[in-house]
């Protein structure tokens, strides 16, 4: 029995927004989240951890994006998170000395 279409996204645009938010948005959030941590804490260890947690978080965010009520809203949230994490990366890079 295929999934009940009653519960699935019908609008083409909504579907497009959700799929792109899942794959691209999820990627941006996962990467910037890890880099933000790495720029403030133990850089080498966090980057090494990212080798596996980066992909796991990305996929979890994909699932979350598909559960969202609105594709545009989830895009908004993911962009906002990406910007906040990017700000942390920027500040981390300014306040902490970079790798020699």
């Amino acid at each position, binding site marked *: 029995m295929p999934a009940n279409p009653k519960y699935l996204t019908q609008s083409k645009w909504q579907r497009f927004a959700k799929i792109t938010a899942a794959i691209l948005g999820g990627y941006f959030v996962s990467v910037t989240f890890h880099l933000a941590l790495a720029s403030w804490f133990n850089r080498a*260890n966090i980057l090494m951890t*990212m080798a596996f947690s980066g*992909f796991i978080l990305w996929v979890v965010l994909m*699932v979350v994006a598909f559960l969202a009520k609105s594709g545009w809203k989830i895009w908004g949230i993911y962009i906002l998170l990406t910007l906040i994490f990017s700000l942390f990366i920027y500040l981390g890079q300014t306040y902490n000395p970079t790798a020699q």
Partner: protein
Amino acid sequence: MSNRNYNIYFHTHTVSGIVISVVLFVIFFAGSFSFFRDEIINWERSESTAITKEIQLDYNTALDTLNKKYILHGRNITISKPSTERRVAVYMEGTKDTLAPAKQKEGQFFYLDTKNFKTFTYEESYSLGEFLYRLHFLAQVPYPVGYYLSGFVALFFLFAIITGVLLHWKKIVSNFYVFRPKEKLKTLWTDAHTALGMIGLPFQFVYAVTGAFFMIKLLIVAPAVMALYKGDQDKLYKELEYTDPDYKFDNKKLATPFNMDQLVAKAKSNWSDFEITRVFIQNYGDANMHVLVEGEIPNHKKFTGVGKVIYRISDGKEIAKKNPITQTNYLDVVKNVLYRIHYGDYGGYALKIVSFILGIITCFVIISGVMIWLVARQKNNMPEKKRRFNAAVVRIYLAICLSMYPITALAFIVTKIFYPLTQNNLYTIYFVGWLILTVFFIFKKNDAFTNKFCLISGSILGFLIPITNGIVSGKWFWTSFMQNKIQVFVIDVFWIVLASISLYVAYHLKAKKESAAEK
């Protein structure tokens, strides 16, 4: 779980699963055989070697031989052992001596036989083991398409695993004990898919994550380099301890003699059970010659224990040392664990066999998933056109996937008879044979026939593998057992067992298919 979430998991699981299914099957099927890559390589050459990751080489003789052929002066030379076979890999950079002839400034990569010191290029050393290993990350598809394709398939496989678990969450315990093979076909596929999916879950999760990392790590490395290292990737690799220290070329002849065997033995004697896995010589024969000897503690003694010693040759002093027992940090652990749990090479043959079985179980989970997809869509309320389209999709999927079995078995026989078979010929036989079989099954339009034909022909060819080996090399599996040629023996017996099981399955399926067909 709300009905909405359930249906979303259901739909995303179905779509992601059906999209990646064929490629994922190829990856898991070839990957399962890759657990025995080293055995296949040895079997093909009728060689055998001690089962150890340690390089077993007479370094002095090896370097003398290479020196005569290539002139080593001023070069950086790396000797490593990528797989358990008689050959070690040698990578030489061009000499740093600017006055040397152009020929000596060229880098070289080849394999060196540790017994007779013959060298082989990559192509000359190409084997069925290497072929199947590389097929499992689609390396035969032009770079970088194959690598990225397999990497993203691994990523979406992880997605399918997670949505699958969420979807199945409520019935995880109760359904585990449910198997109704006598019921209608749909329930047979569903029960098999969920139960085997649950059994294989930890295994599949590990392979999805590590597989994605191996193939598309650039996606996380690139932004890290951009954001944290100002675009200088060398800094990243240095901080993650991937880089070896670099020593300058002095352009003065080394005055003191050196003995590489003694040096390696000295490094080895630092820690008990320390096994040498890589020797990196910098500025060979130069006043500033340095030798890095790297090794590890065997996995059963200490799971992560990588150590190294760096010697300066001019005065024989130890420049740096990393203790494999006390100085393993978090970076070493992650690097080691990501590879070990993917390669499954830390637990001897028991682990390899279990991993192979779990790999084949995953293949079955993939196929049963495709079958659920089809059976659920062959209802009478579906338009005829759509139903025919779905059936055609599944027919093509099954034709591609299942014909891998006889073709792989055939490739074993052909490589044995025509040893050494070149890379090109192996490609031709495997891919053309695969294509012909696939096309044949697509035109035959009978999924049950495809299945049965593949299992039976694969079994027959499988039984012929040890027989071919016996006739061609004179080493029947009992003689190789008695002569302690362990790798040759393992592959022969492996195929006898595998062929027996698939033959049993093929004939056992007969009765069930008919009763199921009338559902």
